[in-house]
């Protein structure tokens, strides 16, 4: 197994799927000649040419809709948002066209498209460039939402997303592109959508974390082990559909749940998981579910304020200790 970055893993997935299927093309701002604003598409223009790797004008609504139309006519577009912050301009097409087309056409037009790019907090880019939007997209039936946290997951899930016959929102974490990890060498390595991964097994408290929160939860679990608390860390990887069964099974074992996310708490994915656990595993809980979320404020610029807005290892540790009634 090779050790590569998430950036390289995504690049490999794109390269392999472009090579595998002529119907796949990549489109977005700066994906071609610039090699990608975050270099995820590095070298792809050179390898596949301008027909398959296409620089767009800065016109998010337009090229999102164009991609969906191309999918209606038989192609399998991968549309990159330079960041998901800019996808907000394209939400009409993503929600009103991509998510609903199959249903309102009575099953005639599925939309095999991937909208991908970095999301979540970045480093000191303030309010409009640092936000987690997964709960928006996860709200809509018709969409699938994927958030990888390791290079292997990034590669395997992106390949599955491109092969999927439905619209997939694939949110990469902006701070995590350089993170390294082992990725299997086999040429057709994929990871199925909708399957959670137990990143660390434990017995006392379950921590559900996604994206940026996964490495933090694992560090918290290390720290808590020193304190005599065994944590199970679950990464759902796919937010919609959510593999709630894996979480329920874990809670039945540990009887305690902490859910960590960098997005705002209101109407968020943590809120959804908490409600599901109350409905499905209430009798197994020995403590109320504890949410750890990003601050309920727009992202500030100042470094100290930004640090306060994003959950850290200490907050996850404190939440685990709280549900374990240790303090």
């Amino acid at each position: 197994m090779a050790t590569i970055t998430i950036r390289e893993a995504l690049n490999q997935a794109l390269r392999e799927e472009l090579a595998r299927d002529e119907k796949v093309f990549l489109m977005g701002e700066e994906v071609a000649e610039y090699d990608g604003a975050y270099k995820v598409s590095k070298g792809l223009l050179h390898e596949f040419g301008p027909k398959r790797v296409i620089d767009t004008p800065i016109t998010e609504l337009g090229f999102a809709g164009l991609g969906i139309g191309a999918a209606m006519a038989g192609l399998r577009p991968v549309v990159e948002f330079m960041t998901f912050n800019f996808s907000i301009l394209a939400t009409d097409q993503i929600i009103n066209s991509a998510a609903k087309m199959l249903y309102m056409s009575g099953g005639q037009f599925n939309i095999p498209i991937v909208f991908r790019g970095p999301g979540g907090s970045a480093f000191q880019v303030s309010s409009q460039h640092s936000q987690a939007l997964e709960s928006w997209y996860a709200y809509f039936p018709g969409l699938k939402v994927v958030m990888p946290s390791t290079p292997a997951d990034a590669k395997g899930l992106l390949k599955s997303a491109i092969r999927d016959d439905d619209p997939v929102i694939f949110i990469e974490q902006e701070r995590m592109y350089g993170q390294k990890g082992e990725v299997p060498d086999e040429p057709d390595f994929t990871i199925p959508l909708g399957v959670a991964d137990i990143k660390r097994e434990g017995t006392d408290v379950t921590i559900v974390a996604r994206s940026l929160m996964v490495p933090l939860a694992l560090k918290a679990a290390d720290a808590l082990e020193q304190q005599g608390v065994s944590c199970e860390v679950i990464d759902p990887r796919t937010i919609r559909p959510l593999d709630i069964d894996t979480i329920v099974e874990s809670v039945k074992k540990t009887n305690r749940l902490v859910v960590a996310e960098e997005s705002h708490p209101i109407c968020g994915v943590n809120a959804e998981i908490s409600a599901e656990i109350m409905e499905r595993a209430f009798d197994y809980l020995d403590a109320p579910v504890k949410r750890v979320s990003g601050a309920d404020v727009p992202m500030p610029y100042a470094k100290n304020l930004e640090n306060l807005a994003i959950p850290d290892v200490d907050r996850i540790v404190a939440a685990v200790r709280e549900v374990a009634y240790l303090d």
Partner: protein
Amino acid sequence: MSKQTAAPPSAAQAEEQQSSTGVMDAPADVDSHQLRRERDSAKEQQKARLSGLGSDQLTELYRQMLLIRHFEEKSAEAYVAGKIGGFCHLYIGQEAVGVGAISAIRKDDYVLASYREHGLALAKGMSARSIMAELFGKATGCSKGKGGSMHMFDKSLGFLGGHAIVGGQIPLATGTAFATKYQGTDQVTLCFFGEAAVNQGAFHESLNMAQLWKLPCIYICENNQYGMGTSLARAMSLRDIAQKACAYDLASEFVDGMDVLAVREATMRAVERARKDYLPTLLEIRTYRFMGHSMSDPGNYRTRAEIEKYQERDPIKLFSASLIEENILDQKALDEIDQKVRDEVEDSLRFAEESPLPDAQELYTDVYANPIEPGRK
């Protein structure tokens, strides 16, 4: 590059628009001689157009327009009777646009439309039965009763909806044109939208990409002069919509939307550009809707006199008069077509009435093409 500049409205057309709506600015030097010359020349043009088509083709154009008219009249009745729910946007008055334009393309070409699409679906070859059943929310409808009035689809006929966010279909159509070029076919896409959609960003973003990337999409702006109850004059700073194509270096034409053959010819020119050279075109087709924006429109934003003025140029009456004048069809033949079409619409109503409602299980089908049971590896 075969490019045409936007032709401004003729003096006759401008004069008429001015007198009837007060919307268009009439040229200062409109005089009666010029008007007469233009009308004479229009008549000659019409003669040439009629002679350029066989009587079968002309009859078919007439039949389609009449089918749409009667279909929509029956839809209105069924709506009032409570058989059709939700919104219902009728095409009455605009028949020449859809029929003329779609007669200029092939069966394997794509059509995308707004929510005012019953007539366009008929013109693309969808059956009155499947459309009426969809309006009735029945399982036999073209979208299995899940789309309704605003979301008609038929994949086998290249009718790609029925989209209900103003302007939303414009990027989609740009995408189908992108796909046909990518796949190396010579299919073209017709994208229909109302003039109010021109104010949406989606229109401008799409035209820019279409010309930049040379995509075979024909943008057909059906200018019926009102976005719901807001007139063009109250909503648009530059009202000659065809001129807006200049901003994107796009070919464009102004077309009389009450003349089915003029629409057909202009569309054929655009189709040729698209098929041969992958070039997009913007057609501004001036038309008028004789009914309200939807069935719930009180209509207090325009006068009865204005509507009647336009009804004098009813596209169906104009065309039937031409057909009779040129001895292509006689009144008896027209009456026979009328009866046939009425029978077809009645049949569609019966079919819709008798069809079953969607099965309750249909609520949860068609959400995903590839449904995933979470946790199943």
